[in-house]
């Protein structure tokens, strides 16, 4: 688990994933989690949507 996290951090920090792709993945994640939240009415999913949205805005900046 720790090794996987380190690998992910390396990929992110060394910009092996293009910025636009990262932005797209996060954008898609926001919409997916929001769709799940809207259908299920799960409050945790709504909170996750808000957190992902803030992350997306942060990445956009």
């Amino acid at each position, binding site marked *: 688990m720790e090794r996987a996290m380190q690998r992910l951090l390396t990929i992110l920090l060394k910009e092996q994933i293009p910025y636009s792709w990262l932005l797209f993945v*996060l*954008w898609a994640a*926001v*919409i997916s989690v*929001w769709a799940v939240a809207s259908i299920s009415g799960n409050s945790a999913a*709504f909170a996750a*949507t*808000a957190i*992902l*949205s*803030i992350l*997306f*805005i942060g990445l*956009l*900046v």
Partner: protein
Amino acid sequence: MDLPPSSFGFSWKHGILGMVVIIGGVMFLIFLAGVAIYPLLLLIGILFILAFRIIWHARDRLNVRVVIIGISAGTVAGLASWAGPGFNSYTIFYLATIPFLFVAGALLLDQSALSHIRIIEGEWRASLYGFAVGIVLSVPAALLNTLMGAGQIDVWVDAWWKPFVAISPAITEEIWARLFLTTFLYLLLRTAEPERPKQALGAAIIIAAIIHSLTHLPTAALLGPAGLSYLVVAFLYGVPMALLFVKRDLEHVVGYHFFIDFLRFISAFGL
């Protein structure tokens, strides 16, 4: 972005920080004087006087296309806001200033090379593309805004087409807050320290975003906890929009702003 040190016809020897303090003081006085009326109107009145002076001084650089687009932007915003809440004489004054702020903003933008207005450059496709991309990029911010319950106050949205009123604040606010105010503050701060453009840009973006955010509140509410929460809103919404304006163009940021309000009004209709 090499600008003459005295872009506004004066020299300043107290650096960017000194200029920021002065701007902050002036803004504080404007908001304080706005106790009797909505602070936005007083601010827009002052920005209108500034815009008029800029246009007058640069009248030899004016071109018909910019003026027509400015008037068109004000007209579209006016027609859209007709169906919105509280259309009155204040709204008419506010909308009447938009063409002036647009033209002055375009002149300042031309001088600073801070961003682009694709429609002025005759790039119609790029203009529509920018608007569409702005909408796509705004989806997370729009969802966040709706999740925070922003639509609960919009009880006036009682027909399916009324969310389209969102084009009005998108045009007007992006013209005065981003195109005019951010560019004006940037040029002013560059006058203070021409060799530090990044700091000038950062300060201009943050100040304009805070001012834009605080004008959504009556002055009395500014002194309470709501004032602080609106500072957070400035950083969540205003700063990304300003950066989008600087990195892309005005059309991107109008699209971004439009969809945030559009989704908010749709959620209000669904309540």
